[in-house]
């Protein structure tokens, strides 16, 4: 059996999306900026996709800009705002659990003299509005807080943070890459000034993203060259990708509730069986359904290391991901797990399961069965487990 439980890394492109994209490779292949019919037809498709994205976010089409993905959108938001508003202030507030696209960009901005405050979340992975409020200063120009975290799925109070920012006249950006299609996002209701999303996380193609910029918000352009996207983002339109993004977001947002219900039912079953059947493990983050992405589960298995778990699961056909440094080639374990207070040695033994549309109960049960075997085998090898077993016997 093959079981894909890494949907936060990426998803399979929906067949219906591919179908819509195909004509734009070799039939309607014109450059969307060209004057001739080949180009005009491509431009129509781009504009249609823009309307689709705008609808899904409750934005206006002229607030939607296509990019190459979540990373570019995040870069553009931070660098574009700092550049355009640098005279007003040089202070940015973000969180310690953002994606590297935000964290590393902030580190770069710090080298350029920008001051950045990294707020830490509570144990459940949530950054409170109060913390944001306390961190605000006269010279704060931007707050960037992700809608939902990719590793532990924690959903941030973005609507409240957005309202606070609006009140203080500070711009609010949210990285909604993990949220789109899984929870409802509405730029008006949630008081969002800038938002990043990425099509491949909701069954769209890879390499296409969007930045929403509320009308009236000044952002310096990031990609420099031609006059595409009203001079905001240069580069020939990726017509098939953009068409795919538009179709994917329409499909993904058509039934968020049903989708979320399917995922959370399976996820809760997975969590329940793991906790009941595997000793010495614990769930990272909150299990409050309203505060966690419906398909996300993050578990620490004591005394063993994440990469070995992943590899053994992979041999059984199961794909997950880990918070261990060993699987990513870096030396530090997941910055998100460390941020919510998971000690390094336990962060090394953490596995993230992210469920998707095509998963079913049979796959989840198979996963738990294989997981039990895996954990048992690795604990038999571990010098840490024996000690605990020994201690247990001694008491």
């Amino acid at each position, binding site marked *: 059996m093959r079981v894909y439980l890494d949907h936060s890394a990426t998803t399979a492109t929906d067949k219906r999306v591919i179908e819509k994209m195909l004509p734009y490779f070799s039939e309607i292949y014109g450059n969307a900026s060209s004057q001739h019919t080949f180009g005009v037809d491509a431009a129509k498709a781009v504009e249609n996709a823009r309307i689709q994205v705008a609808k899904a976010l409750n934005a206006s089409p002229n607030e939607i800009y296509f990019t190459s993905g979540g990373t570019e959108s995040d870069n553009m938001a931070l660098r574009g705002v700092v550049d355009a508003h640098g005279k007003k202030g040089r202070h940015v507030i973000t969180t310690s659990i953002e994606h590297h696209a935000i964290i590393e960009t902030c580190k770069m901005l710090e080298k350029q003299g920008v001051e950045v405050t990294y707020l830490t979340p509570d144990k459940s992975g949530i950054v409170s509005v109060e913390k944001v409020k306390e961190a605000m200063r006269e010279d704060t120009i931007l707050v960037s807080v992700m809608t939902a975290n990719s590793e532990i799925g924690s959903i941030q109070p973005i609507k409240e943070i957005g309202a606070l920012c609006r009140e203080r006249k500070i711009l609010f950006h949210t990285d909604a890459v993990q949220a789109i299609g899984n929870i409802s996002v509405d730029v008006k209701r949630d008081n969002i000034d800038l938002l990043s999303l990425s099509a491949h996380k909701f069954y769209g193609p890879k390499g296409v993203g969007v930045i929403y910029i509320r009308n009236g918000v000044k952002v310096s352009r990031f990609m420099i060259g031609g006059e595409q996207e009203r001079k905001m983002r240069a580069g020939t339109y990726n017509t098939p990708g953009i068409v795919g993004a538009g179709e994917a977001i329409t499909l993904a947002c058509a039934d968020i509730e049903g989708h979320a219900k399917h995922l959370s039912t399976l996820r809760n079953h997975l969590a329940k069986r793991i906790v009941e059947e595997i000793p010495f493990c614990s769930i990272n983050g909150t299990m409050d359904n309203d505060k966690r992405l419906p398909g996300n589960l993050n578990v620490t298995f004591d005394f063993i290391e994440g*990469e070995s778990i992943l590899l053994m699961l992979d041999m059984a056909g199961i794909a997950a991901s880990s918070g261990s440094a060993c699987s990513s080639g870096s030396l530090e374990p997941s910055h998100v797990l460390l941020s919510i207070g998971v000690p*390094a040695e336990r962060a090394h033994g953490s596995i993230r399961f992210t469920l998707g549309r095509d998963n079913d109960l049979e796959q989840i049960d198979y996963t738990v069965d294989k997981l039990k075997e895996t954990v048992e085998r690795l604990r*038999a*090898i*571990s010098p840490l487990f024996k000690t605990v077993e020994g201690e247990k016997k001694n008491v």
Partner: protein
Amino acid sequence: MYNDKVLEAFKNPKNVGAMENADAEGTVGNASCGDIMKIYLKIENDVIIDAKFETFGCAAAIASSSTATEMIIGKTLDEALKIKNSDVIEKLEGLPPQKIHCSVLAEEAIKEAIQNYRAKKA
């Protein structure tokens, strides 16, 4: 990422588990870095007649431990001390660059066990 030899050693590691009445033990690494390796030795007349290991760590760490124990069984203590991490890598037909430290850990665990043994004897 890993070659077949490493995967095989990870899947079916040799000499796994604690050893009762070991003549020597050596533990290196620490949990917060993500690897701990413990090697047990049975020694007769300065020859390693049996070796076992317990490892907390990634696939490369487990494969390195398994291979290292196989390499030292039958060797004299002096011969075992000469084993370098590069010898472990060679036996495994290569490790990814970011996993080289796992083979270093195996070399250090052997040295630690032998040093402990000699210190105890002296």
